[in-house]
């Protein structure tokens, strides 16, 4: 399984990257942990790979005025080790160990996962649950898109040709807020059968992954005041697609189980 031929450039600035991305058949390469397998399997055949990993400005996590900004090139490993993330965005810290395996977490990037938008991926659901903003940049400037409207469909996001995800901005978790992250997979590091990113601030936000073509915000379940009503509402609103091993009914059942575990965690954790 060898990739088809392509050319490769590693720009030193964003401006240079945007210029290169205008070339026909150009594609962004960051950590490569999703793109390179798809090249090896010849599911994708770009003419030019623009390797953005030289843009070190995109590799930082900053905390300013209670907003955490995570650069697109921050790796999963870097997120998992960050004290700021553990303290201020514990939902993401809890998600990282579920992402693949250590060797992949060392290269795979935060921005790559967001831009690819795999429906079974962890970060998109977290970002929707956290009401995060995605910072998108193109040669004409920057746009801020809410996570909820960024993930538009199956592997489809609000990115125009030539634009990059450069960061996500997340409000730091307040003292009386809670979160829970749970995922069911066949083996450790596998793609999720189903998972939940739950945030409790003014109200609840329960967002499921592996449950549809995008992260699925269970609006009705999130509105219910008690667990029984929330589970009943979830059973009515969630219609997860079957995968190779699990029927839609199984997944809906498992989603209810995770909702219950998350609910208990939110209401009992210190």
């Amino acid at each position, binding site marked *: *399984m060898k990739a088809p031929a392509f050319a490769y450039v590693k720009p030193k600035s964003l401006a240079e990257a945007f210029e290169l991305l205008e070339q026909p058949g150009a594609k962004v390469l960051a950590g*490569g942990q999703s793109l*390179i*397998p798809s090249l*090896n399997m010849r599911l994708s055949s770009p003419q030019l790979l623009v390797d953005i990993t030289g843009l070190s400005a995109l590799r930082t996590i900053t905390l300013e005025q209670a907003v955490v900004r995570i650069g697109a090139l921050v790796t999963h490993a870097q997120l998992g080790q960050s004290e700021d993330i553990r303290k201020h965005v514990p939902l993401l810290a809890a998600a990282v*160990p579920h992402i693949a395996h250590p*060797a992949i977490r060392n290269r795979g990037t935060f921005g790559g996962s967001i831009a690819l938008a795999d429906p079974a991926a962890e970060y998109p659901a977290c970002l929707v649950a956290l009401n995060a903003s995605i910072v998108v940049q193109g040669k004409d400037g920057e746009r801020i898109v809410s996570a909820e409207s960024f993930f538009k469909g199956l592997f489809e996001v609000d990115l125009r040709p030539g634009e990059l995800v450069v960061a996500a901005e997340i409000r730091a978790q307040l003292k009386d807020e809670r979160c829970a992250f749970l995922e069911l997979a066949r083996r450790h590091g596998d793609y999720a059968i189903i998972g939940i990113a739950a945030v409790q601030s003014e109200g609840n936000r329960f967002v499921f992954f592996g449950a549809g073509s995008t992260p699925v915000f269970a609006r009705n379940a999130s509105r219910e005041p008690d667990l029984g009503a929330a589970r009943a509402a979830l059973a009515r609103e969630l219609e997860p697609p079957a995968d190779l091993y699990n029927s839609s009914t199984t997944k809906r059942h498992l989603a209810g189980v995770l909702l219950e575990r998350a609910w208990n965690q939110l209401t009992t954790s210190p």
Partner: protein
Amino acid sequence: MEPANDITLTVNGTQVSRRVAPRQHLVDFLRDELGLTGSHIGCEHGVCGACTVRVNGDIVRGCLMLAVQADGCTVETVEGLSDSRELAALQKAFHEKNALQCGFCTPGMLLAAQDLIRRGENGMSRERIREHISGNYCRCTGYQAIVDAIEEVING
């Protein structure tokens, strides 16, 4: 004509310069260009872990990184880490505990295990070891003996 890029990197302590096709992944480069065939090629899409190598001190999938991306990097393979004796204790434990049969997964397994050992966590559980090597497939041993060997090196 197929595009090509010049790269210079340090492999097992030796600086090498080559012209590579961008589509060549790192493990093919190590095996075909440098003759370092200790890193194995299994699935070539990041699932099996047989191609695990160390780049700038971190383990990575050799099939999910292009050789051209390793320009300027320090790469270490099972050959280099055997010669430096960094893997000696693990290799001895793998031998004594029968932690390999066909040996295909072993180089990747050793690199993943050594990565865990280098983290220096105290009192590591078997569960923690299993979690860390969950990205490295072994089709012979059923993992029990591999976990035994790693546990022996970590917890004595």
